[in-house]
């Protein structure tokens, strides 16, 4: 029977299971440890006397009467106004994704449909810029930004993030577009579309998985960015990641580390949700070309 022939030896099954469990623990453990610890006081989570305190929360119980406390979250979100950072992150991410996808889809499409050979060099140049560490670019931006009084504002950071991110977006979308046969554009044109209508009504719908995957990568870049946002934003306009870094940087008062831990958990949760919602598109965008049949 085919099923019998395909059955793997038991030892192999056990080995792969063990491997997956170990891998899961290594990968997921830090996150769950942080999640658990974020509801404790600092002396529990970073207990020097007894590490099991972090699990049982003895000192937390002593302070608040319960083994769990939301003090870290309250401190971060309300006292330290982490909500402002979250809002800033949202604004930055939204505009970075929208801008780089708009330029990326239009540019990637145009490049993929152009027969000229400068396209190749354009893409290579784009890749080189992408390969440079962002910090080298940012330091170059600083003097003019100070001079023109642009430093500190969200739009400035958005523009720089888009600039850094655009080559990658362009490159990725370009390769997605190239996998879509030119016959589709040409069919659409003969059927009555202008070039832009062909792009809008025929190519983009076929491209969705690619656009979503690329959009997600842009989002992650903006969301996780530290170099640009830390250097270009003033305290009011800080996004989440530099804000977390700021929590950590002032450890002389008790609770700030816990603010950072709570903020880290807060910042991670949306990522989980996002990946779960879009996992199917991401997989199909990353593996197959966008078109079948």
């Amino acid at each position, binding site marked *: 029977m085919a099923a019998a022939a395909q059955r793997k030896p038991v030892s192999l099954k056990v080995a792969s299971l063990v491997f997956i469990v170990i891998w899961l623990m290594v990968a997921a453990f830090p996150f769950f440890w942080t999640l658990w610890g974020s509801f404790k006081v600092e002396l529990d989570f970073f207990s020097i006397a007894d590490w099991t305190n972090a699990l049982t929360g003895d000192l937390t119980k002593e302070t608040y009467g319960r083994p769990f406390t939301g003090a870290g979250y309250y401190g971060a979100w309300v006292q330290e106004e982490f909500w402002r950072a979250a809002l800033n992150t949202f604004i930055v991410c939204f505009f970075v994704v929208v801008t780089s996808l708009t330029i990326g889809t239009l540019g990637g499409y145009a490049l993929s449909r152009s027969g000229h050979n400068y396209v190749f060099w354009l893409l290579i140049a784009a890749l080189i810029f992408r390969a440079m560490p962002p910090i080298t670019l940012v330091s170059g931006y600083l003097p003019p930004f100070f001079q023109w009084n642009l430093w500190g504002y969200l739009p400035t950071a958005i523009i720089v993030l888009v600039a850094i991110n655009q080559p990658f977006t362009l490159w990725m979308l370009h390769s997605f577009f190239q996998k879509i*046969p030119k*016959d*589709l554009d*040409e*069919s*659409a*044109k*003969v*059927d*009555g*579309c*202008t070039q832009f*209508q062909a792009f809008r*009504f*025929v190519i983009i*719908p*076929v491209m969705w998985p690619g656009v979503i995957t690329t959009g997600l990568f842009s989002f992650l870049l903006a969301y996780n960015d530290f170099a640009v946002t830390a250097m270009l934003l003033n305290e009011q306009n800080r996004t989440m990641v530099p804000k977390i870094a700021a929590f950590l940087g002032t450890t002389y008062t008790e609770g700030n580390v816990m603010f950072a831990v709570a903020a880290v958990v807060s910042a991670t949760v949306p990522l989980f949700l996002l990946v779960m919602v879009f996992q199917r598109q991401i997989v199909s965008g990353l593996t197959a070309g966008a*078109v*079948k*049949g």
Partner: protein
Amino acid sequence: MAEIQLKNVSKRWGSFIGVDNFDLTIADREFLVLLGPSGCGKTTTMRMIAGLEEATGGEIIIGDQVVNDLEPKDRDIAMVFQSYGLYPNMNVYENIRFPLKVRKVDPATHDERVMRAADMVELREFLHRKPAELSGGQRQRVALARAIVREPNVFLMDEPLSNLDAKLRVSTRAQIKNLQHELKVTTIYVTHDQIEAMTLADRVVVMQRGVIQQVGSPTEIYDRPANTFVAAFIGSPAMNLMEGTLSGGVFTSDHVRIAGLTGPDGPITLGFRAEDAAVAHDSTDTEISAPVYTMELLGDATMITVKAGGALVSVKANKDYRIEIDETVGLHIPAEICHLFHHETGARLDG
């Protein structure tokens, strides 16, 4: 309804000439087939008419309008692509409807027109499937339906049958012929398959390396090929072509002697079709006498091949005829069935 005029149309990429001085008028409602080996510029010619490729020289006129500078959408043509070019995200119904939608045809008429087009190609039961869920033949019919739904001035079809299996090709061919007859639309059809060309065309254009070799009805092209290229390209098997010399109306070459011809003395190429010739009865009507190279049973006939006049020469005999390889056979090639061609240019010699 439209006549199409191509005036000295050509296409160059750098120094490479894809189509050279293509000059032809296609009558209203005509079914014109562009025929030629792969890479001879058929698709390029069609794409220039569609507006997907810019002509580097000449004028293209559809109806009474020069269309060289018009976008494809403004040329009122419909095209069936070799790979069909169906929209993978739309179902069959939406695919067929798409041209009506983008051209802002009155939405109230959409349903009726889509249904009529779908009925013409027998697609009604598949309207809700995506292209990926269809067989090759069904996809091909969707492409056809999408082309006819709008009732354009001109149909362009680029090897629409080449991705189908042999049986389906025959039935779809008949369907295309019938559709064109019913819709009475000027049609340009590209193929490298001479049987498709012969069965479908009002007129055939035979092309080679971007140059028109002959324009004519299928019968003309078959009966009076304009040069050795057309002679060798049309017919199955291709026309036999032998090199030899003509003197005083007698063609001679190794194993060959054909009398009663009219033509200039000197080196010459002589051609005849396998089905026109026969096995000789006796030495008086034997023009070729040579050992048998091979014998093939075709079912409805027996094909005998010999080496003569510097080429392999085939003759169709009765289906019961049998002979051994290397046995000498006499073949009857009367002068009436012979075509004479210039030995260098390959051009036909008798008027």
